[in-house]
């Protein structure tokens, strides 16, 4: 029983990262009704860019690396918007899907090229802290990951529901043409959505690096798949859905990793997704249409 709880809590804490990645996918989908396949790759790319801070400032503390990743993620988000969405007409839904796949491959290869494919060590905070409650422990670095993710989500929700930009974003998501008639610049809102999603992604990438201890370009594909799974389980376009689904998938996969082994783990995650598609195709929080 204790084993079970321990595994579950570790997984749920790590699941906060999946939630962040899921939010990025869902945010872009909600506003543009397009999928950004390059998102997870850009997130990992942002985290790598954070390492450049270590090169520039020799003994940079971990928070500076995180900040660097956060900002670089935002810039990559904008880059993805310009290269893969801005110039492609809305009438060709397949083109941005393909161009973002091209971007995914490009970001992956740039990382491989610059690091010679070697995994890079990533700084962590509080990795020597352990909270103990008898036999039950909470890892300090995972708690930090969880805490930062929650703060980022609160920040995002505040931005969306308490600011003019958020109002514009939600207006574009609901009715792009009506929003344009009200004087909202749709392309600017779209670009800003990508930047915001990118900022979250860069942060998520850095948190993955910190909790795993290293970054590798091999992370991008599994992260893309997990992010999409979380997005669908949560309900496309629903931010609370992505948060709940992220934590759910994190806990679920860690349980199966513990009891069925790492090679079978993802198979059960896919089964979970299929169960959702068959019995609840709208996800946890289906969009009202």
């Amino acid at each position, binding site marked *: 029983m204790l084993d079970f709880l321990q595994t579950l809590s570790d997984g749920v804490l790590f699941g906060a990262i999946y939630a962040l990645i899921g939010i990025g996918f869902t945010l872009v989908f909600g506003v543009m009704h397009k999928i950004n396949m390059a998102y997870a790759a850009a997130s990992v790319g942002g985290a790598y860019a954070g390492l450049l801070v270590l090169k520039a400032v020799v003994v940079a503390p971990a928070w500076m690396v995180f900040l660097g990743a956060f900002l670089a993620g935002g810039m990559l988000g904008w880059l993805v918007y310009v290269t893969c969405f801005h110039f492609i007409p809305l009438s060709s839904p*397949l083109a941005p899907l*393909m161009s973002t796949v091209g971007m995914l491959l490009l970001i992956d290869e740039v990382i491989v090229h610059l690091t010679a494919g070697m995994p890079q060590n990533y700084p962590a905070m509080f990795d020597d802290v352990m909270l103990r409650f008898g036999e039950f422990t909470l890892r300090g670095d995972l708690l930090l990951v969880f805490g930062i993710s929650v703060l980022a989500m609160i920040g995002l929700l505040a931005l969306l529901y308490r600011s003019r930009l958020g109002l514009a974003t939600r207006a574009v998501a609901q009715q792009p043409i009506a929003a344009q008639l009200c004087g909202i610049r749709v392309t600017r809102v779209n670009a800003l959505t990508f930047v915001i999603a990118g900022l979250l992604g860069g942060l998520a990438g850095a948190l993955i690096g910190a909790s795993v201890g290293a970054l590798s370009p091999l992370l991008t594909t599994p992260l893309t798949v997990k992010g999409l799974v979380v997005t*669908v389980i949560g309900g496309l376009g629903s931010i609370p859905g992505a948060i709940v689904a992220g934590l759910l998938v994190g806990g679920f996969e860690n349980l199966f990793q513990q009891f069925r082994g790492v*090679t079978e783990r*993802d*198979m059960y995650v*896919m089964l979970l*997704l299929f169960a959702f*598609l068959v019995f609840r*195709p709208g996800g946890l929080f289906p969009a009202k249409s």
Partner: protein
Amino acid sequence: MDFYFGLAQTVGIHTLLGLSAYIVLLTGQVSLAQAAFFAIGAYSAGMLTVLAGWHVVPALGVGSMLGAVTACAVGFPALRVKGLMLVVATLAFGEGVRLFFFNFDYQVAKGGIRVGPLGGEGFRQIRFFQEHGWTTGEVMLFIWVFVIAVMALLWWFDRSRYGAVLRSVGEDEVAAQSVGINLTAVKVSAMTVGGAIAGVGGGLYAHYTTHIEHANFNVLLATFAIAYPIVGGLRTVFGTLTAVIFVQAFLIEGLRFLGDWRNLLFGALIVLAMNLRPHGLFGRHGA
């Protein structure tokens, strides 16, 4: 010369993979499960020739049928969801199949050595062509017989009533439904035909490489499958063939002299191509 025969084999197999996604894309559905049907064809045809000692042609037939049956079975639940949900559903199915083969052991002793799929180590020694003394040129011709047959079939589909029905569903589902077209039947049938084509391609792939493992059938392969028809444009089957030649012969083999930089250029060229020609290299002009 063997190099060019080898290249032609790769182009042929990837054309089959691309065509299996092409027919599904005609109905407006994006399926990332084609790599899974490809894997099912590869493993089943390989097991039939190696473990059961079948000739390669019936083995390919069974691989193709299994691909079609799985595609049909996946089609029903997966096509309840549309658009991006379908992308994710089929992606998840594809990963599920890959992970199944990652955990799949079925070995028998044969002539002192154990043969058959062995989990993460893959499935070695699918040596039907070598054992029967086929030359590279003959294998290439064998593969292209299938490619040309499938291309002719799809070309004929395009000119038949069935092709018009497929495209009408892809253009506008509501309009298609209002003239009495059964959407589910059309989509599932396209998926089934696609699964059969991918199954043949997979069987050929297994025999041509002689060694397959789960990692061959990852998301990247699934993305390539849909990339060929999208990059080539959905107007005719030749778009897919041209895209395969563009990617496999030009981007991958032709740019080999660039070394590491080739991979960088690869992604960038796809991005550029989609920006300049959003409807594919040979797609229609304008919106």
